[in-house]
């Protein structure tokens, strides 16, 4: 099994930063706000590996920095420190050393991202099919017929009724909007997919349907995924390995079933015990 992503010492600090930031924040300090300079240490020293075709969970509560990790890897933000290597068939990319055009190329051709808020991942001014067409166009597909067929196929795959292909997403339910987002993210068959709290806030039945879909897709396409969530059920169902974050640091990492049944860290134990 080959490695697809290697993240080392990823950090993101909002604000000026000061020499005491790191020691004044984190799980022991019970905060990610530096009392000396007011900076927020959103994440610090985050490291993990991801292998082809596997699903890694990033678990934590609000303020843990889990979303910040994927935002930086997807280039929505630039990190304050650390590095990430993306292994792309026979090439390696040092993600944060690339220029904007190269990063955009990776976003359009090799990565996919599904946000918790569909407004971040979809363009609400164009139809569902148009959203997918946009992504295909960004990946340099220029044949209208092929684009249309692929858009329809993807929406069918994510169980969006074909009759809604040309409708605007604002007329869709939350679950359907998420499914359009997933279809859009998968349009380019990316080897690496980021999922940021994609089922949070959705009805349970809708959630189940989307989780099903994600797993099926992973089995078919062998997409490697980073799944960010605070929901233990989602972690258990989707992921084989997971990392647990608190106040920006990784406090525990391991096999998902081990973390859930034999948590080592006090915080993880509390988290697991709190699950309904």
């Amino acid at each position: 099994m080959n490695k697809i992503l290697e993240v080392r010492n990823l950090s993101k600090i909002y604000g000026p930063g000061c020499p005491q930031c790191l020691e004044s924040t984190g799980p022991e300090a019970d905060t990610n706000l530096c009392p000396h300079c007011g900076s927020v240490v959103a994440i610090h020293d985050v490291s993990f590996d991801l292998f082809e075709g596997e699903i890694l969970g990033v678990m934590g509560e609000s303020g843990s920095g889990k979303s910040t990790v994927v935002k930086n890897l997807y280039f929505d933000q630039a990190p304050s420190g650390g590095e990430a290597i993306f292994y792309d068939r026979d090439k390696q990319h040092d993600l944060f050393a690339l220029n904007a055009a190269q990063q955009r190329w990776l976003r359009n051709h090799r990565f996919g991202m599904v946000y918790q808020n569909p407004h971040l991942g979809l363009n609400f001014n164009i139809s569902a099919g148009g959203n997918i067409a946009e992504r295909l166009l960004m990946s340099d597909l220029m044949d209208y017929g092929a684009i249309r067929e692929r858009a329809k196929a993807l929406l069918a795959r994510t169980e969006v009724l074909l009759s809604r292909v040309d409708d605007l997403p604002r007329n869709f339910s939350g679950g359907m909007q998420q499914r359009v987002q997933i279809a859009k993210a998968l349009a380019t068959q990316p080897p690496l997919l980021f999922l940021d709290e994609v089922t949070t806030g959705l009805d349970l039945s809708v959630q189940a349907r989307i989780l099903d879909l994600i797993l099926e897709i992973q089995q078919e396409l062998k997409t490697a995924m980073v799944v960010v969530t605070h929901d233990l059920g989602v972690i258990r169902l989707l992921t084989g390995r997971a990392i647990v974050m608190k106040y920006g640091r990784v406090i525990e990492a391991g096999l998902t079933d081990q973390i859930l049944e034999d948590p080592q860290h006090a915080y993880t134990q509390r988290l697991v015990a709190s699950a309904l």
Partner: protein
Amino acid sequence: MTLPILQVEGYGKHFQLHEQHKLIPSSHNVNFSVSAGCLTALVGPTGAGKSSVLKGVYRTYLPSAGRILYRDAMGHELDLVLASEHQILELRRREIGFVTQFLHCLPRQATLDVVAQPLLALGVSRIDARQRAAELLSAMNLPERLWSVSPATFSGGERQRVNLARGFIAKPRLLLLDEPTASLDPATTEQVIGLIEGLKSEGMAMLAIFHHPETTSRLADQVVELAPPPAVEELLKEIA
């Protein structure tokens, strides 16, 4: 005499509950081996840590002490306690199976697909995998009308049969069984015993905990008696 597939030496497990400031012992100084084509049964009273041993081998528990030496398909020996998460995931996919007491699966997946899943993970085609799943479910007397339905609404016994089918289907080299016949009626229990004997003769190694002593005596080639771990104070003396 072939080399054992699994050799457990001095396995110990305790849980450290930080919030409650408690140390809970689970297993202590367990030693045994398992060979191909043989079934090793763990017996002992409740609290003896039988499930803990199985989970320790599968790495659902992080062992606190000891070595768990596994000989893989290539003949290489590795200590599962020290293996990387990655190696463990690969072994679970290809070589080590675990039939637990609980069935965790996607809420809406059809039974046939639940059972077929381990074969799909090995790259078998969906059609072939489902075919094999159908054969196993028939062998376990699970009515065909249930195959396209999710196991979420099944009875305990029905779920257990799905669980077993999923555990058997990929024919792992080492299969861990935690009370596999506990919720089954006598007829189905017979079927399962037959299946297990068949798998044994095909060379599968098994480590099992059985609910009924008769099943143990029928299937076990080796019986390992486990005693409850020593009390906490003794354990603390040992750790110190």
